[in-house]
């Protein structure tokens, strides 16, 4: 079990005990004792205490280290000076590869330390490729450590509707997927879009300034249980019920298992679902933006 660029002890406190490290299973009757945990990170976080092996990597060298691991897995020659650049030694990497190949079932959990630093999605791709290539020797998977509640659900739902998980452009009437072109930060920074509806997010507090400026400049609509930073710079804010606390529904766990929400409270505000449905209905009452058969017949 490898955690790469994540700090589950502080960010996902029950990940160890409920899901990954401690539970006893059919093939792991002794729980923790049957598992080896490796932590790869740039500093010794609270999660290092739980790890059997802690590998301190130099910041921004994840892609290099993952590529070196892939080479070692395939038995290819690796340049030792390139490995030294990553802050790890050949012995450490060789030992890690031996352990990964010996494992009955391995998993790489990668966090934002991998996916949000230099290299970004190429780093995640390298981790997934490493896991894929290890399947020549044993069973191995890679899984991202998801932060926000139902971000996995967003991937799943957008995927089963459009065929792609995020960054989907529907302006031609069919879905097109291109992260970097249709991903939010890029769209906002370039100023491509002329209206935004934000549901369950507060980009006004987290996004780069040019993106926030564009949100303030154009027509922005926010659905949120609270009046947020983004609400203050938007044209329309609608208060909605808090997901899982006063709004019922379904949320996906990070391993893509759907969970039913059991809200303990009843909100005076409508749910996101209801508000979005009513906005869709209001839009549907207007003429379609694309040429419908009826409109074409009328002009003919």
């Amino acid at each position: 079990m490898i955690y790469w660029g994540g700090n589950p002890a502080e960010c996902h406190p029950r990940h160890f005990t409920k899901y990954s490290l401690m539970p006893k299973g059919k093939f792991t009757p002794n729980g923790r004792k049957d598992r080896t945990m490796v932590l790869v990170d740039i500093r010794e976080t609270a999660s290092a205490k739980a790890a059997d092996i802690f590998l301190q990597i130099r910041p921004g060298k994840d892609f290099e280290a993952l590529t070196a691991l892939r080479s070692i897995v395939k038995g290819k020659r690796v340049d030792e000076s390139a490995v030294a650049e990553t802050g790890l030694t050949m012995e450490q990497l060789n030992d890690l590869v031996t352990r990964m190949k010996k494992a009955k079932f391995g998993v790489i959990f990668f966090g934002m330390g991998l996916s949000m630093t230099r290299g970004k999605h190429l780093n995640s791709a390298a981790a997934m490729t490493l896991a894929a290539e290890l399947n020549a020797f044993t069973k191995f998977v890679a899984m991202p450590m998801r932060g926000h509640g139902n971000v996995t659900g967003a991937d799943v739902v957008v995927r089963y509707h459009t065929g792609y998980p995020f960054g989907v452009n529907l302006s031609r009437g069919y879905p097109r997927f291109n992260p970097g072109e249709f991903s939010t930060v890029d769209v906002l920074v370039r100023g491509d879009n002329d209206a935004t509806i934000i549901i369950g997010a507060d980009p006004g507090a987290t996004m780069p300034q040019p993106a926030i400026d564009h949100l303030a400049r154009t027509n922005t609509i926010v659905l949120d249980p609270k009046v947020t930073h983004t609400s203050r710079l938007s044209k329309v804010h609608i208060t909605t019920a808090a997901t899982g606390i006063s709004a019922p529904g379904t949320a996906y766990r990070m391993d893509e298992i759907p969970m039913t929400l059991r809200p303990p409270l009843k909100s005076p505000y409508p749910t996101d679902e209801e508000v979005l449905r009513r906005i869709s209905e209001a839009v549907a009452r207007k003429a379609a933006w694309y040429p419908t058969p009826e409109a074409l017949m009328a002009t003919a």
Partner: protein
Amino acid sequence: MELTVTKHATCTFCGCVCDDIELHSDGTRVVDTKAACILGKSWFLNHDVIRHYPDALVNGKEATLDDAIEAAANHLYKADLPLVYGLSNTTCEAQRQAVTLAEMTGGIIDSHTSL
């Protein structure tokens, strides 16, 4: 005050989505949690159902829900390229509606994943 106990409640703070939480609530707020971690506990205890905020704001002024929905629909309908963004702190049912809206308005749909 009698407390309502919700068993097997699901926490949506982080991606773990633990579904074995016991919540004690008094109708307006959650007063106690069992099995939740430190993050989940503060997530549940820091929400209540008191009307802290107006139903809606249009151009910074308080508005009714109906007016705000109409204004939102107009903005999205008039836009050449609307963007539907966020989706992580909401339900799958709402996400489905969001996809419908993006498709109807010919926009882009994107989530926190792309950050």
